[in-house]
């Protein structure tokens, strides 16, 4: 049996090409993540589910340097992890863990894509550098 997602309704899983699950306002077209039942822009409640694009660019990033307090449920043995906002073109900015935690290999504007990664005995979503756009740390 595949590992369970950290939450229902967050991303399609199991899937060969997993997608984040957002919502789209039928009135004004605004896309939100996670899916919500009303539109934060025009206040409409006429919204539909939307599977979001799998690739985008890094809008901003940081590296979490200490183990967060509860409710953080990551491993006791703390390893710094990358966090960023990814801009999914024409859709929405998504906050996400990054598979890279080395500041020398992260830059604003780099191409990234959705991956599903282990988190304890569950799985969660993250973004990884796209093939061909990984920053070469030796040249940075």
């Amino acid at each position, binding site marked *: 049996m595949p590992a369970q997602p950290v939450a229902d309704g967050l991303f399609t899983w199991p899937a060969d090409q997993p997608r984040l699950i957002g919502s789209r306002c039928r009135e004004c077209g605004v896309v939100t993540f996670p899916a919500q039942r009303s539109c934060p822009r025009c206040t409409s409640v006429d919204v539909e589910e939307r599977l979001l694009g799998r690739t985008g660019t890094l809008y901003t990033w940081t590296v979490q340097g200490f183990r*967060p307090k509860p*409710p953080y449920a990551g491993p006791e043995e703390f390893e710094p992890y990358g966090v960023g906002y990814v801009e999914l073109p024409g859709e*929405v*900015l998504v906050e996400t863990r990054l598979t890279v935690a080395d500041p020398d290999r992260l830059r604003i504007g780099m191409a990234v894509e959705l991956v599903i990664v282990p988190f304890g005995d569950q799985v969660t979503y993250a973004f990884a550098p796209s093939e061909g756009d990984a920053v070469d740390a030796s040249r940075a």
Partner: protein
Amino acid sequence: MSAPEVAIVGIGIHPFGRHDGVSGRAMGVHAVREALGDAGVGWSDVDFAFGGSRDGGNADAMVADLGLTGLPFVNVRNGCATGGSALVAASNAIRAGAGDLGVVVGFDKHAPGAFGSDPAAYGLGAWYGETGLMVTTQFFALKIQRYMHDHDITGAALARVAAKAFRNGARNPNAWRRRPLSEEEILAAPMIAHPLTQYMFCSPGEGGVALVLARADQASRYCDRPVHLRSAVIRTRRFGSFEVFSPGLALERADSPSVDAARAAFAQAGIGPEEVAVAQVQDTEAGAEIVHLAECGLCKDGEQEEWLARGVTDIDGALPVNTDGGCLANGEPIGASGLRQVYEVVAQLRGRAGERQVPGDPRVGFTHVYGAPGISACTVLSR
């Protein structure tokens, strides 16, 4: 008949820091007694009170210590804007004629370490906290990383903000961190959330602040140098602003609540940002001071790099900022933090800020707080 204007006629503070064995409420009571003494009035003279705390208990429980006079005492709980919200409410009460003399008080006492937050309290799924995305320090790092990229701000500027805070804190007997730190020490400290090191962040702490408010036309009864509260404004976020605790954000960028609150505060006061002689802006971390200076209209985006290099925001600079050491040197007891800024501006405008007094007889001051989940409170004060 027009609504009465509002003046601050008494200020009181319990030193910030760590105070084992002293409750948050006791710090609030200490601050209220000091503020009443400053105004030359007693608790029984007070018509109403507004107060708040996040982790220190109910503010209105203070009546057990201060005296059971039967006055209306309203508890306020509004995150980092708790003090600002209490001040807005008290100011409106005076303007509405609900009383002539009011007390505003904020205090807090937090456990050591970064704040933990409950996703459910913010309408977010449990996964958001469990997977390590609900961390305020992370948000500030994400925001300043992008701001530095867009406006050519360097790590040196971040270090200069922090070094200034600890320099000013060293001159403030009520501050927590009173040891100056060099820019080199600050940059070499452990990285908490890139590009921000340990000494670029404030810590949750303890402390209390109280203010006595009066009708401006009666202020001379209590105080020989009253400071006028020209405006006090709170705003929440609008669609498109870049906010803490947001799993998703709109593609379009709107002004932050700090921009909205500051703009409204200046407009209501009839005073422009260029008239400000001393300012306190939220410096949860060093980058926040840089961003907030621009968001509040006190400088242009990108100008901060040169300002900091030239010492413009130092106590003897053209626009002194966070003259009491800010959150960086005082720590952040959430309920008290916003009122600390007002305390400091009143002290500066009265010319009674001691070793950290801004020279040149400042007449106009400004305060700004920002906090989760996207709220801001600003005040404009003048003599």
